[in-house]
């Protein structure tokens, strides 16, 4: 491995190893319930409640534009009533979880990295350690638990709003028959689509919290270090979510085929 030292590949591999160690320690601390209830509730409020506006607007307008685009194509082959089925499956399987996660990564991932990074450069993390408090128990565990609880709930809201707004656009604006629109959506959608979306959002919640915490805990010194950590937290979380989405889709589909 020596030939990799100092190269960007080497740095990347070292970073990946450190992130894996942080993940292992954070998961172990989560399992032994090392977070205080007050900290956990505050993080759920910060990640879940405070992200409502951005997630709901994203979900609603994604459902609306997807409905319009699908209708314009399907109308050519007289399949207007199948429009909401496509919107439903897309929102549950892909767009709901991925867009929600990307929006939360931008808002929450950046905030986590900036807050922990500032604590690091002002010695507050060392102060925690001298006060016999493990930074992972105090800083990472509440954020990780809150993120994996809040993301599925936010995703569900986004999906429901996306489908509802799509339904309204389809029936009120585009003139599709409401009964057949609803009937076709129920016909072509499965419960498993919702489960896939929830599983994905759970994983993305973990990715956002862990990368945000990791970037904060390892940020460079000074304002520049905090700024870079914040940017990297958003960029790395977003890229990881998009790459993971592809593999998770394949994995979940295979598992579904195997089970059914």
């Amino acid at each position, binding site marked *: 491995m020596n030939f990799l030292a100092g190269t960007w590949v080497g740095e990347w591999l070292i970073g990946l190893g450190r992130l894996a160690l942080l993940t292992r320690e954070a998961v172990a601390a989560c399992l032994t319930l090392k977070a205080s209830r007050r900290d956990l509730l505050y993080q759920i409020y910060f990640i879940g409640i405070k992200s409502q506006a951005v997630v709901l607007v994203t979900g609603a307008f994604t459902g609306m534009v997807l409905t319009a685009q699908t209708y314009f194509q399907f109308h050519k082959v007289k399949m207007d009533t199948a429009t909401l089925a496509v919107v439903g499956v897309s929102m549950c399987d892909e767009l709901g979880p991925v867009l929600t996660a990307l929006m939360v990564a931008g808002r929450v991932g950046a905030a986590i990295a900036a807050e922990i990074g500032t*604590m690091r450069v*002002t*010695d*507050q993390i*060392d*102060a925690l*350690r*001298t*006060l*016999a*408090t*493990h930074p992972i128990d105090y800083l990472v565990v509440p954020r990780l638990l809150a993120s994996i609880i809040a993301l599925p709930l936010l995703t569900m809201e986004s999906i429901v709003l996306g489908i509802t707004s799509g339904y309204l656009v389809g029936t009120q604006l585009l003139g599709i028959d409401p009964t057949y629109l609803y009937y076709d959506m129920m016909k072509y959608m499965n419960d498993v689509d919702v489960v896939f979306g929830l599983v994905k959002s759970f994983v993305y919640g973990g990715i956002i919290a862990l990368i945000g915490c990791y970037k904060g805990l390892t940020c460079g010194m000074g304002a520049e270090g905090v700024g870079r950590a914040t940017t990297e937290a958003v960029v790395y979380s977003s890229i990881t979510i998009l790459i993971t989405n592809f593999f998770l889709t394949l994995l979940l589909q295979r598992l579904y085929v195997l089970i059914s």
Partner: protein
Amino acid sequence: MIEVRQLSKSFGSQLILDGVDLRIESGESAVIIGRSGGGKSVLLKHIIGLLQPDAGEVFVDGENITRMNERQLLRVRSKFGMVFQGAALFDSMTVAENVAFPLERKHQFTPGEIAKRVVAALEMVDLPGTEKKKPAELSGGMRKRVGLARAIVYEPQIVLYDEPTTGLDPIVSDSIDKLIIRVRDHLKVTSIVVTHDMRSAQRVGNHVIMLHEKKVYANCTPEKLFASTDPVVRQFVDGVADK
């Protein structure tokens, strides 16, 4: 009792400490002096296990802490209180929440007991009535006092001070020195103070350790150090720049 044996530490290619040996007995008040960038704070961080040495060992009450992981170190660190150079107060919390923090993490005290201890600690550092203020509303000297209150509220056996008077005016520095002496005498703690303030070193220490060229250069009483005719010691004590 704290013992450091052959401690060496580098950051990248820069060697900071090279085979440092020292011993601080329980109840002693030791002052570590030396030039800026000479490794004083690095040595202090090794004593509390915030840094791992490249070589050498640190013993706290006979326990070798250099081979402990972070979770094992938490137990050892509960013997310590540390006052940081920039106070390192948690800026999202009030003064009272900062001081109460170590007590709340111990889960051994009722809210009433915690409130009582917080008031007592703030009175000890001459800051009564500041409980509801945020760190951003405090002056540099007040922040250091709150940092000290947070470090002593759980009655540790050893208190470490990292440049407690740096950046403060002489009057506030004097009050911080008096506070260090008061804490030492009232709580009977072992004190280790890192400073390059010679007046402060003379007042608060009964044992002075001088770092020079990455090693312990002098290890004696303040009286002996200030009476020394050694050119390196004299240059530092008198504050004379290199030619």
